[in-house]
């Protein structure tokens, strides 16, 4: 359960009938008091196969964050079933690093809580910091790092948990464009080397097309799956690629239709 090293690295030999990593079935979630509540998710169903990089796009109020919260067991659905098979980790919009710990200590805490023996902590955290190109910054505290560096530390911390399923909630929303491009490359490389399942929430359609095997378009208020788009373009996909641009436009138009439905709300 704990050992990240024990996970098969590149060649994932799965039985043909492997169960999906993520299954969401008919989930309802509402907030607020009865009568005047806001329906965040209404009968949403979604399946993500093991090892898939799935992107969720939707405008505000589509319940993206709620869905991730349900999968990470931070919240409970009022109706329906939520199933995540494997160890789940969640990366937030803002890097939720503990400000009283250094970058390395944040990672070590994740290792410790994942049950990794203490003699391995410092080596493993050094490895993980190197993986996200932060070697030499382990002694810094979160406020002494830039936004992009904090998000990379958060990624390293999530990897330290030995997660099979990585949930990401608009993780690069607050990062500048140049850093974001690099982070896309890094994330893609880490994902393809690890065989993890990723569910990546974003409102940036281009980002979704750049990264996803699949892009799931959500409706807003209440959130449901409007359409799913399979992205079969070869990786890595340059962001300026015409095929990327074309798909981005198509999905953006679909999303715009969804938003316009709410013009008269």
């Amino acid at each position, binding site marked *: 359960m704990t050992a990240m090293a024990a996970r098969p690295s590149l060649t994932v030999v799965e039985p043909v009938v492997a169960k999906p990593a993520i299954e969401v079935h008919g989930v309802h979630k509402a907030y607020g008091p009865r009568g005047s509540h806001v329906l965040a998710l209404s009968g949403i169903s979604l399946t993500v196969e093991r090892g898939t990089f799935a992107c969720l796009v939707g405008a505000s109020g589509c319940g993206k964050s709620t869905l991730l919260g349900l999968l990470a067991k931070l919240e409970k659905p009022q109706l329906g079933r939520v199933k995540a098979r494997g160890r789940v980790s969640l990366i937030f919009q803002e890097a939720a690093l*503990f400000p*009283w710990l250094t970058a390395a200590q944040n990672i070590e805490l994740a290792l410790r*809580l994942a049950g990794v023996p203490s003699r391995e902590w410092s080596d493993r955290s050094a490895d993980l910091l190197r993986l996200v190109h932060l070697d030499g910054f382990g002694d810094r505290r979160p*406020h002494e790092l830039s936004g992009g560096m904090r998000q990379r530390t958060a990624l390293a911390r999530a990897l330290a948990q030995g997660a099979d399923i990585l949930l990401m909630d608009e993780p690069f929303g607050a990062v500048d464009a140049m850093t974001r491009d690099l982070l896309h490359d890094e994330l893609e490389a880490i994902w393809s080397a690890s065989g993890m399942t990723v569910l990546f929430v974003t409102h940036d359609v281009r980002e979704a097309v750049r990264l996803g095997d699949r892009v799931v378009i959500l409706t807003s208020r209440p959130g449901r799956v409007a359409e799913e788009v399979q992205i079969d373009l070869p990786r890595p996909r340059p962001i300026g690629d015409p095929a990327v641009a074309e798909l981005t436009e198509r999905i953006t138009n679909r999303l715009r239709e969804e938003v316009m439905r709410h013009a008269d709300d």
Partner: protein
Amino acid sequence: MRTTEIGQQMRRERTFAGLDSLELPISERPTWARRLWGSAWPQLAAIGLVLVAWQLVVISGWRPAWVLPGPLAVLPRLVDELRNDLPAAILTTLRRATLGFTLALAIGSFIGLAIVRWRLLRTAVGSLLTGLQTMPSIAWFPLAILLFGLSEGAIMFVIVLGAAPSVANGLVHGIDHIPRILLRAGRVLGARGIDRYRFVVLPAALPSFVGGMKQAWAFAWRSLMAGELLVIIAQQPSLGVTLQLQRELSDAEGLLATMIVVLAIGIVIDLLVFGTLERRIRERRGLIETAA
């Protein structure tokens, strides 16, 4: 093909390194001595000003010199007392302060945690705790003396009643105001039960807890002085007893010298111990700018 891939990887790493060094917040730390001097000289100047004002009042002849002696008489006397009887009195008082404060810390922390854990308890005693702080500690002494006699027990009782609510309040306030995202992050990492408190809740609440401790110290010190003036225990010279004795002997010089010691101890512990602790914690978390 292979070489271009490696080239790309290197370019990527160089770009990361470049961005990182450009984006890093620049923090300029003034040297330790500079910072110390920066805060010390205005304070020293203020103390000097107070001494001058004091001397001027004495010169004006508002009260006779045997009632209100000036700093020129009191300060040498202070040095003299510090060579003779005062150290023993200071030691007794500090021992009581340490014991009482430690008790208040333990009891206050326990109450604070209990309030956080049980909603009903919070509704029941949450506001009462703040109300308890408005009770002048000296008003507890008659009861304390009835309960414990003229003993250290009576003094400890009042110190705990005065200081524990501040500790509890600081802890409760700190836990209440933990950013939700940190609690969620803790749960995602799998911190449950004791681990949740040990690795997430308590460290996150620490700044406010230290603030509560600082306030608790002020209450404890006041309660202790009141207690030592009222609860006089034979054979135990303390700062309070010294003050009382000096008043009875109309020894104004000695009285003022002792008062300076009382004031100095209170300030030194407040500023040097708790003030430094608080500032360190805030700095480490990036809650205040390091540069003045």
